[in-house]
């Protein structure tokens, strides 16, 4: 408050008040009135209020909230950036969870196992996906995909199990064929894979209702809401990949070594059948392990509902994860495929010449060499996911809440800027906070991209040296 001293000229002040627009101080004393300009700039925002809990009016406890009401009336503005940053991280997490494995695996297949002619057509198609406008993806996700998923949540969950299961099972069945036939037919392998996708989806559709009955007490919406059933089903869903990994790892380290030892003089036929049996046993073991762990966790009173899974909202992280996966897959795929393809041919030839199978070459020679390239592909994909706007804006529900529930919406920094900046008053606190949000977004992507670029440059130098 400037000029406050000049009042001290012997006149007693009767009362002081703040001007109606909060831009002045009025003092009335003696027979005069005195006015001082008063510009607190942006009192409602400090670093602490942006990033730490604030005890807002009418709240029971300090909280981090984003709630920007535009006019000066009504409840105060709540400008905590953390829910938005959280939303951004959540979107990125679920998007990468779905997009990254798909893109990397697809890149490996394209680069290492597909035929050059097929690769020449497949790659441009996936690259074309990169230029699909995200507004189209977002709109399809929100208006076509989201209602569809809402009606068939169990089927979608089942598909996440059946699709990989179908591919792996086919691989084991493939071995049942005589090697000559198998080698002859190998060139059509990708076509079989294409045909298997609908098969997997069909299975998912078939077992979806059973899935719902067994794991989710017959009604997944009520179950998610916490009204019926126990948490075992959700633990199963969460633990299944983990236990599959554990079982596969154990099989590789112990069972395979043992089988190799005892199968010295087995015929191929016998070995293959035993192998299939091993896989089936392993599957059963996986399910059993997951079930045991889930029951144990439920037994000691942990319920995943309320954390990673909870009440279903139509526009949610799962839908956004798929749609945004769509957006990042081509980017990760292209860069990863480039990285794998640029691994010098003589390394491959040497490995194959030494008797390694293509798979062994891929996993032991090509991938370690291209690792930094793959890493930078993931990082660049991550950068895109962090800043993606239209998809989350349209399919993400746009509620600035903080929970990891995959079936709930969220609001990201980018979507928030897109929604609120056009309406913010130029120069207001809100306007400036949104610019700060943009800066935060920029800084996040800047770090991710710079790291990716540095790693990529290093990889390029190394690849050239090889």
């Amino acid at each position, binding site marked *: 408050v400037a000029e406050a001293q000049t009042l001290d000229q012997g006149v007693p002040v009767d009362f002081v008040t703040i001007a109606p627009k909060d831009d002045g101080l009025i003092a009335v004393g003696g027979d005069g009135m005195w006015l001082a300009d008063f510009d607190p700039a942006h009192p409602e925002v400090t670093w602490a209020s942006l990033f730490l809990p604030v005890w807002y009016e009418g709240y029971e406890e300090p909280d981090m909230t984003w709630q920007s009401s535009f006019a000066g009336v009504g409840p105060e503005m709540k400008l905590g950036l953390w829910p938005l940053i959280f939303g951004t991280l959540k979107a990125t997490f679920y998007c990468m969870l779905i997009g990254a494995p798909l893109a990397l695996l697809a890149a490996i297949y394209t680069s290492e196992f597909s035929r050059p002619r097929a690769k020449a057509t497949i790659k441009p198609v996936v690259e074309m996906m990169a230029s699909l406008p995200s507004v189209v993806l977002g709109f399809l996700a929100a208006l076509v995909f989201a209602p569809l998923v809402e009606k068939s949540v169990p089927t979608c969950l089942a598909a996440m199990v059946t699709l990989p299961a179908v591919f792996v099972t086919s691989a084991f069945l493939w071995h049942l064929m005589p090697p000559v036939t198998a080698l002859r037919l190998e060139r059509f392998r990708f076509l079989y894979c294409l045909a298997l996708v609908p098969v997997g989806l069909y299975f998912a559709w078939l077992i979806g209702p059973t899935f719902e009955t067994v794991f989710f007490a017959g009604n997944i919406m009520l179950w998610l809401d916490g009204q019926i059933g126990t948490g075992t089903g959700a633990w199963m869903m969460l633990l299944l990949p983990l236990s599959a990994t554990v079982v596969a790892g154990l099989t590789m380290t112990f069972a395979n070594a043992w089988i190799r030892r005892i199968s010295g003089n087995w015929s191929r036929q016998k070995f293959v059948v035993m192998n299939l049996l091993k896989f089936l046993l392993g599957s059963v073991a996986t399910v059993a392990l997951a079930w045991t762990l889930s029951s144990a966790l439920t037994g000691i009173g942990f319920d995943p509902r309320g954390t990673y899974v909870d009440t279903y909202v139509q526009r949610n992280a799962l839908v956004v994860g798929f749609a945004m996966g*769509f957006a990042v897959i081509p980017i990760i795929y292209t860069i990863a495929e480039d990285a794998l393809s640029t691994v010098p041919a003589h390394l491959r030839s040497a490995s194959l010449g030494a008797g390694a199978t293509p798979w062994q070459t891929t996993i032991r020679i090509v991938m370690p060499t291209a690792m930094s390239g793959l890493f930078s592909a993931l990082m660049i994909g991550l950068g895109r996911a962090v800043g993606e706007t239209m998809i989350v804006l349209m399919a993400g529900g746009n509620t600035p809440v903080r929970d990891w529930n995959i079936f709930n919406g969220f609001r990201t920094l980018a979507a928030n800027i897109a929604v609120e900046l056009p309406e913010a008053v130029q120069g207001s606190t809100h306007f400036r906070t949104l610019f700060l949000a943009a800066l935060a977004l920029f800084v996040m992507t800047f770090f991710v991209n710079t790291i990716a670029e540095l790693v990529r440059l290093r990889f390029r130098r190394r690849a050239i040296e090889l």
Partner: protein
Amino acid sequence: MSSDVSQSENTPDADQPKPSIRQRARRSPAGNSVLAQGEPMVWLTGGALALCLLMILGLLGAVLFLGMSTFQPLPIVKVQLHDGSTVVGEVTRQETFDVSADSLLNEQPVVVDKFVENAVAELGGEEFLADLPSYIKEHSTRIEGEIAETTDKVALLEGLIEQGEKQVEDRIAAETGGKGRVQDRLDAIRASAAGKKLKGFRAELSTIRGKVDALKGQLVADQEAIDYLATEPKTSDPSSDNNVSPKLRQVFDAPRPVKVAVVNTVLDQLAKSRGVRKVNGQRRLFRIGNKKITGKTFQWVADFEVKPESQEEPEWSIIAERTEWGRFYGTPKQFSVRHERVVSDEEKELAAIVKLFDENLYRAELDETQQAAIQAAIEPLRKELAELRKKRIDEFFAPLEAGEGREVLAIPLFGEPVAANDRAPDADYVAALEVWKTPKTSWKKFEEHHDDVLERSARRHNLKKHDLGHVSHTRIDSRKLLREQELKIDHQLAPIDREKRAIEDKMAEMVENDVDQSSEEWTALQQRLDEIAEEARKLEKQAVNLVSLCSEIYQYRNSVADFDKLIDENNALAEAVTTRLGEDSAATAAGKKIIASLNAEKENERKQPADTLAELEADLSRAPDDVNAAVEEYFKVQAKADEDDAAIQKDINQITEENNRFELLMATATGDDAVLSLDTIVRAYPANQLTTGDKAGIYASRWWEFISADPREANSEGGVLPAIWGTVVMTLIMSIAVAPFGVLAALYLREYAKAGIVVSVIRISISNLAGVPSIVFGVFGLGFFCYGAGKFIDGGPGNAGWPILPTGQWYMALAGLAVASVVAFVLGIAGATKPGATVTPAKQALSVASTLFWMVAVATFAAIVITTPYFRGFYEADLPTPTFGKGGMLWASLTLALLTLPVVIVATEEALAAVPNSMREGSYGCGASKWQTIRNIVLPHALPGIMTGMILAMARGAGEVAPLMLVGAVKLAPELPVTLTNWAGSIGPLPTGPLHSDRSFMHLGFHIYDLGFQSQDSEAAKPMVFTTTLLLILIIALLNIGAIWLRAKLRKRFQSGQF
């Protein structure tokens, strides 16, 4: 190393001499190789790729299907519902839904009854009804089970709550030690983890209790139902129809709680017998239109609501797509054409005279006998008028005799229309109405006239949009001229004001420092202040609020002129009276007296505006003389604009009148009749009579409208022409902006720059730029382009909120700039090294210093430009309305140019790298310089690659939406960013006029977002979203395919390596 080579070697057996398959198979040892092949993992990777591809194809297929199918004309279906209503409309969608007891019980009782009846029939009819009580018992048992299930949980929760409460209390007690209330609250918060948990438990408990209450309610209802069903059903009820058995009738007549129990039980049993978890039903979404009548455009109809066998496709159901209120569904009832009777001048004059005497005779101040005499005098005129009128009316109706299927009505001035033949002989009929009454004839007539009406509507639309728009632009321009004159004085005042403030500050400082107020300096300042004040007063005297003053003067002039016109008209009437009634008759004298009295009244009314006008004109004369030209121009332009406006408005009114002659009366399903004016109907067709050809025609015409028309109905109908133009123009400006920067940057990086830290940093920056989220570009565009550069262009640095340097300092900065440039130049020459000579450290230092000075010079230049006190913007007269200081075409294009810059740089660099070095070396060998080599060898060869990059950039730019939301895309832009009107005033498909780069624009991508997520009736907007998406994808796919094709061509031309 070429990627092609590596590709061919990916598959190990591509280039090697192949052993036969049999040999290879034998070579592999039995067991181990199976494991080593890693087949499951390979299949997983293949599966991932297959999934990705199928997702892409599925997505494209979905877009294609949804986009192509939405414009297809559907048949109109009519169904009757059990509740007595009729639904007519297009079936847009069909789905299976879960029938829940709650939603079912919300329906009309009839529907519930019918549902129960059907269910009972399915479950075994009378037998089921007989066992109904036992089934209800079963239901009760299930509910009891459910209640029992909750008791454990309730007990558990209660225990937990008790425990939690105790914990919290203990904690508060422990921590506060019984101190004051504030402390209590703080500690309660400290224990918030426990508190929160407690809250959660309580909430859960209350939900469970609520649920249990609901279940208990069901139990009670069940018991009631069992009791009710135990009573003997009434044997006969005369009012009911006979098909219903008495037992069922009893159920129908049951009170509501019983029905609830029955419905619950029936649903349970249905699910059981069908073997499903929940009972499914089918329902259809009818597009029923007629929003003005029914208040909704869509209605869900479940199959069990429909009366069996009531579905039909009525022959004469018409779909009318209208310009407002959406689609209309109905049957044509009557078509009418109105013929206006033209009143001749003679008739008009006579009527005016008669009216004058009828209404205003009191003004002549006559006694009764005199009045009677005058009445007698004008009696012949009355008679003449009546005869003339009758003759004209007979003449008018003569050709309009009623024919086959056609009626003719006469419309009187007052009262109801009558059949033309029954018209009264002495009444005044203003129009005739031709009417056709069967669906077929009225539809035929409709088709006959519709095209003409539409053609006229299009003409009127052009008149309204373009001609009127043009006139209003001339008005605005002339107003701007005035505003500029106004600003002139402001500009003269501004430096005076600045000086005054400086002197005042200085004086205040002197007071602070206790300088003697009688000193020479003080006096000089005081004197200067007085001088300035005098000067300012002189200027302020001249400062007139020109714009508002002139517009007021103009208005008052007009209203004075209006009074003059009225008086003139009265005088003309007086002359007519004189000729009709004779020069010196008493009636003429009376008439003249009446008119004189009327005129005196008008004169009186005219006085007030005339006085105000004089005052205002006196005000205007205060303004300096040099504004006169602008003021004159303003009045001239306004007068001309008024004249033009009137002429255009007359044309418009004429068209409207002509169009309003045609009306179609339709009957709707709800039993209401609605009159449709033909010019509100865009397209109408009898949906159930269409041949395949008609359907194709409608489909094509809808697509054509979609890409060639403006949107209507809040964008949910009509076309997207403005959005197409917005997208195209924006993309073009963007590529024009991005091309030079991208190509030059790539040329520098690839051909000139030496590898080093600077280049690495630049490269990392470029790839970082590619990774920056597009919304951040939008924020940058808004902050820098719109609110910075744009406001600067509009109104100079002051408007942009930038500091303005005082004149003296500014000139000093200018001098500094000159010095810095000269120094930099001299240092640069001194520091230059001849080619081939060794670089000495001194020279290097000089060249570094030169670079630094250049940087300083550039920075100073920028500072000088943005702080100049001499620039007040190009659009100052328009302020505070921003011209460039808001989102617009130019800023959107520049923002996207920044966004796509890395795409162009990377593509151009790749193209440059693809030019084989041998060609460069050949060129050098022939003695060409570096620039000659680049110009004549490298660039031509790299051109296809550069074009590829440009096309890819355009594809990226065309699909980007997020930044546009901030820098200029709007949901509805009334004016296109380019002028499509040619000199004759009609719209063509090609631009004819200037580009308006400051205007907001529509964009296909933004249109999708806005329609799908911001529109009020999202169901009605869906077709438009689908088609817009298809269009956008098609544009982008075309651009991409072009790029891929170019790239393939380029690859073939230069097979040499690149990394």
